[in-house]
């Protein structure tokens, strides 16, 4: 994976140069790397440990603590189902299951797909529009079973 990444080293160095020194910028650095690559390649963690003079274990600890970071490349499409309280009382769990079914994703492995993943998020703060699903970054409120079918149709068309 990492060997196939072209110019990984150069791109990493450019990112390092844009970050001020000091441990407190570790999380900022990780955000930038993920923005650039879509995930955190192993080399980035090693480089972060070196640059911020902390142990690789420390960096790994931070990466795995926060839900924003991922160490595997992102799939083509990402669906995020909001499971905030308002969404929950408006049936987010059923929406999630139905979405997985329509996409033919194995239950419990929704977040491991190659082309499409379904992620759960605690709350997006669009509670008045519950239930909410985010399709490749685009928010969709008051989702119903019908609109789920449309979402899936559109994704299959895009693929």
């Amino acid at each position, binding site marked *: 994976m990492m060997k196939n990444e072209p110019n990984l080293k150069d791109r990493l160095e450019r990112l390092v140069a844009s970050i001020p020194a000091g441990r*407190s910028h570790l999380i900022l650095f990780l955000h930038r790397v993920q923005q650039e690559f879509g995930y955190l390649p192993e080399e980035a963690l090693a480089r972060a440990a070196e640059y911020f003079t902390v142990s690789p274990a420390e960096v790994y600890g931070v990466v795995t603590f926060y839900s924003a*970071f991922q160490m595997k490349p992102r799939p083509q499409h990402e669906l995020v189902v909001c499971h905030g309280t308002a969404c929950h*009382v408006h049936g987010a769990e059923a929406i999630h299951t139905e979405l997985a079914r329509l996409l033919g994703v194995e239950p419990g492995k929704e977040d491991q797909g190659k082309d499409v993943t379904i992620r759960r998020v605690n709350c997006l703060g669009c509670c008045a529009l519950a239930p909410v699903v985010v399709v490749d970054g685009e928010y969709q409120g008051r989702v119903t079973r019908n609109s789920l079918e449309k979402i899936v149709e559109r994704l299959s068309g895009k693929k």
Partner: protein
Amino acid sequence: MNLRKVRTVGELQNLRLRLQSSPRTRRLVSLSTASCGRASGALEVARALEAEIKRRGLEETVELRLTGCHGFCQLEPDLIIFPEKIFYPNLVPKKIPLLVEETLVGGRLVPELAFSPGPGQGMCAVLEELPFLRKQVRWLLERHLTLDPDSLDSYLEQDGFLALEKVLSGLSPEEVINLVLASGLRGRGGAGFPTGLKWRLAREAGGEDKYTICNGDEGDPGAYMDRGLLESNPFSVIEGMIIGGYAVGAAKGFIYIRQEYPLAIERLERALEKARAAGLLGKNILGTDFSFELELVRGAGAFVSGEETALIASIEGRRAFPRQRPPFPVVRGLWGRPTVINNVETWANVPLVLQRGPAWFSRVGTSGSKGTKIFSLVGKVRYTGLVEVPFGLTLGEVIDEVGGGAEPGRQIKAVQTGGPSGGCLPASLFQLPLDYESLQQAGSIMGSGGMIVIDESTCLVDLILYFLRFAREESCGQCAPCRLGTRQMVRLLEKITRGEGQLEDLELLQKIGWTMREASLCGLGRTAANPVLSALRHFRQELEKHVLDKECPAGVCRGLISYQIEKERCSGCQRCLESCPVKAIAMADDGYPQIDQKLCTRCGLCQAACPPDFSAIDKINRKETGSSAGARGE
């Protein structure tokens, strides 16, 4: 946009006066385009409006302003036309030509586009007539209606930085602290600590370096007051923080925003740049010897980061682990230095306090809770959205009058306040006034302002299980009471939803809850049991129904319900067959579909797929079908 540096207090004053006195030549048209609005298509509506305004040659007479959140989330995207304040809700691009033709060109109202509270109840054409505004006091939200969140000029026009101007033209830091103290302003994040006192403690703490932090890690699911403020009026938070920095003697502050709020981060970034360019941040602000810098920190997704000591760890670039208090951050905070952490809404209130004075501020509210509070009123209520009310209004006034009560044909059962740290209060307690102390005494907390209304279709056991699963996932794992307590509670609650619960389980839940409350390290663990403890106090009957009668009155817990096809109403269309994800429905010999109860997962998709004209699938208590499932001889 004026990006020249403002060098003195006098120059700032002149700039504001010039902006305020320049006559408005164009009619202001305000479209809500915060996250909720965008999710409802506000940007498409904006494009349609722009095109239509151009097509009709109205650029000289009409100014379309893309503002933040108006608070009427359910009616998004909405448009307000000034000066009459004509209000058009739920816009879509195809309504725009008519709207422009009639109202902007012809000066006439379009009744069919106006808001109506219900059939036969007439229309509310202008803002003041909206029923959900009547009990509100919108000190903060009102400004969102006309403010361009990306424009410093727009903020200045609305008396922006007037408070800072006052402070820097002659108030000493101690005087500022005394004014904030006298106003009675308390922390809006939930704990309700007096803001002025917090500032004083930090000011009096020793050492050179001090910091201020804005806690924008609004993590409670169901709450989005802070997102609304950050997206709609970022400069007010910045102004509050500059004043706070001056008062406590800090040269640097941090604004921490959760990464789930991309638009808030974007707007804050732009606002910080503009404030810096104008000389309102940086060295020698407005020519005084006060220097202050602000840095934006983007969270990375962890509920516990909202706890103040965990948030500090996160800014330091570490895992967001809370630590024991005392010492409190005002004594030992960021990098061990005295640090003031206030919530977004608290900071946004600071300019108001300084501008209008403590007497003005404290005339609204109760004896112990002053000013207004923003709530996110969501769930099973007619009008959802951000509401701002004076402290002391009752729960019932907010839910029934501002929120319009239950959805048609439903009955409100309870309200959940305070998120995963709070509890559910039954409708019988809706006469309680909203302030920091009353809700706490009743077994919940006001929290940061999330208010989730639930009706008879929501199961209390399912809801508290939801919160405990949330707490289990988000527990940082440092201390045993929280790490193990949340786990055990989830296990017990799952057992109850499966219909295997026993009366002793309720006692055990209570004991675990008390232990967590007493022995956990931080606020997350100490309050994580609150949803369960408050349910045991106010909804014991519903819990016992699950345990003793193996019945879920709301029909939610899958282990306690089942679905049945009523042949008399069935048309034999077979839609239910196609909808079943586990192929549990098959045509029986009598020509009607039948559900195999052993295979059925009780997802309810068949019931939803059944055409409404027939509604042939009933949800019933599990125990009633126990025999019929067996009778089919599986």
